């Protein structure tokens, strides 16, 4: 992907303090994460629950502040946004769509409320009439009729509500939509429609999407690039077809081997990994995946692996993969 850089996370770190005064410890939710999102690009951020995916989205949306590191949007550091105008502009350009379409809407207000309100806030130049017209337009864009504007949330299905979420984001003329598991609570037959919508927004309006998911198959369906997180760090990243065809990090391989595929022949004899993702509390140095990794070597317990490019654009943070060079690393298949 040679698209222009839109957003860059630079050594992004987010820690949480836990425990009382005497047992103060630190949870490393996101640790030293670097990545970029280009213009007109869908980047999938995948990983287990607790791997830090949502924390990254919340930091990018400025819901929580990074402990250290910086987010650059269009080349400018986001932490330097001081004035209300600048901050509003940023949150309009980088809106978020949430996972739960039932919890993210006020049940006593019509669905147009959210859209009209964000229009009023982010595009003050529009008149009341202009706002209504614009709301109708974004509803059409996401595949909802303008008559839906007058409905209450309870009258809408889960898929329709999630479309309202995207309409709300689109009303602000965004450049990057942060979509945190936008389809995981929807029925299978409805999901595809929303994935197609995300691809359409990219193709016709040039909107980028950070698509957070634990479903690799749906990520492959829409995304251009894939970032795999494990325990707060990036395990592997690269063009999605390349990563799926040649996964280099043992964790990515494990993840791919676990994806149910009705078209594949049965292989129950496959390894039964019974490990669990770790809670990253006051971690010691070393690879965080080493306890579950069949390939772990001594170095893995001493040195934290950093992302290194193994093929053009394809990075993995794994000592074994980096030493093996071009050779295939196979931990799980």
């Amino acid at each position: 992907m040679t698209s222009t850089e839109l957003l860059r996370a630079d050594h992004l770190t987010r820690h949480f303090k836990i425990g009382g005064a005497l047992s103060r410890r630190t949870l490393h939710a996101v640790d030293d994460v670097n990545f970029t999102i280009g213009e007109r690009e869908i980047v999938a951020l995948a990983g287990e629950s607790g791997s830090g995916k949502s924390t990254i989205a919340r930091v990018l949306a400025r819901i929580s502040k990074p402990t250290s590191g910086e987010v650059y949007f269009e080349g400018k550091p986001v932490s330097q946004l001081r004035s209300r105008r600048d901050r509003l502009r940023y949150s309009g350009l980088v809106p978020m769509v949430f996972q739960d379409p039932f919890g993210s809407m006020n049940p006593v207000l019509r669905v147009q409320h959210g859209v009209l309100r964000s229009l009023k806030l982010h595009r003050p130049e529009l008149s009341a009439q202009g706002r209504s017209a614009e709301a109708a337009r974004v509803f059409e864009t996401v595949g909802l009729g303008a008559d839906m504007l007058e409905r209450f949330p309870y009258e809408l299905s889960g898929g329709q509500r999630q479309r309202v979420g995207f309409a709300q984001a689109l009303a602000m003329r965004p450049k990057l939509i942060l979509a945190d598991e936008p389809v995981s609570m929807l029925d299978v037959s409805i999901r595809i429609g929303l994935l197609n919508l995300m691809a359409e927004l990219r193709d016709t309006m040039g909107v980028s999407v950070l698509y957070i998911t634990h479903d690799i198959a749906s990520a492959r369906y829409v995304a251009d690039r894939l970032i795999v997180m494990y325990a707060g760090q990036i395990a592997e990243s690269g063009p999605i077809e390349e990563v799926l065809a040649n996964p280099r990090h043992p964790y990515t391989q494990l993840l791919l081997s676990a994806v149910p595929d009705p078209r594949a022949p049965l292989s129950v004899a496959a390894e039964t990994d019974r490990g669990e993702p770790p809670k990253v509390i006051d971690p010691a140095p070393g690879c965080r995946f080493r306890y579950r990794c069949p390939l772990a070597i001594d170095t893995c317990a001493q040195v934290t692996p950093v992302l290194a490019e193994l093929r053009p654009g394809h990075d993995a943070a794994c000592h074994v993969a980096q030493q093996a060079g071009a050779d295939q690393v196979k931990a799980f298949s």
Partner: protein
Amino acid sequence: MSDVPVLEVSGLCVDYVLDRGDVRAVDDVSFTLNRGEFLGVVGESGCGKSTLLFAIAQLLSPPARVAEGSVTFQGTDLVGMTDEQLSAIRWRDMSLVMQSAMNALNPVKSIGAQFKDAMRAHGKPTREEIAARSAEVLRMVGIDPVHLSSYPHQLSGGMRQRAMIAMAMLFTPDLVIMDEPTSALDVVAQRSLMVQIKELQVTYGFAVIFVTHDMSLISHFSDRLMVMYAGQVDEFGATRTVFDRPLHPYTQGLLEAFPSIRGPKVPLKGIPGNPPDLGRLPTGCRFHPRCPYAVDRCAEVAPELYQLDQALVRCLRRQDGSLPVEADRSTPATRGA
């Protein structure tokens, strides 16, 4: 005894009695479950799959009630049994694993104490027997018995779900009913739990009814597959057959809605529209408003569940042959697998 099926459900209908009239959530479901069989039930939210499970386990509470039909478990009809009669069967012969183990386990009691309660409810085991059996079932699901003294919040999601399954195994039941036990887990934990359930099932020979909305999950684990839509069975057949040669347009649509991580990338369409409101069902075939093959007749005639080849399918056009069955969908790699 061995040729008596574990469970026979016949003409089962469940109504929700509401002010605006009764809503039929499960409509005329019949099937026979043999010993050691793994039955998968799939469908979208609101299709009645969980209500069906609750009806089988006799756990419905008002406003839901069994309106018609019978649930025969090992020769006795459970419908109309009193709670006392049921409690002799529950857990000993038939156990239930629910969707969210966090809610199903008691948060203020240790795992061991909850196992003890379940065992004391059925007989008078000694303390040693309880300890031995509890440790044994935990080991069966791959959890170290030290966790008998752990509380649910101290276990991860996957371990809680495994502890629930261990608890369901306490009496080696003949039937284990599972309601989306893996849906709160991520793919890796989900996969390993499925493999484990299958291993236990093969080893101990209990029958399983497994409800899920994720068809791809059970493709390798269930013997037969029941697809539900709007309270009815739409298709019912051997799992491999349903996957390779889906007969009902809804099943086809469901299968085509799954992106794959292998093979060429193909644009998918999903199924247009939404599942119907059970209180306002369309006339004729319940799927016809969303069906790409619907003809006028589909809006007029309500199809029955027709026998076609080895499978049951509720589709007029399949039955009269006007929608020919396509060639095998399976790839060369899966054929004969």
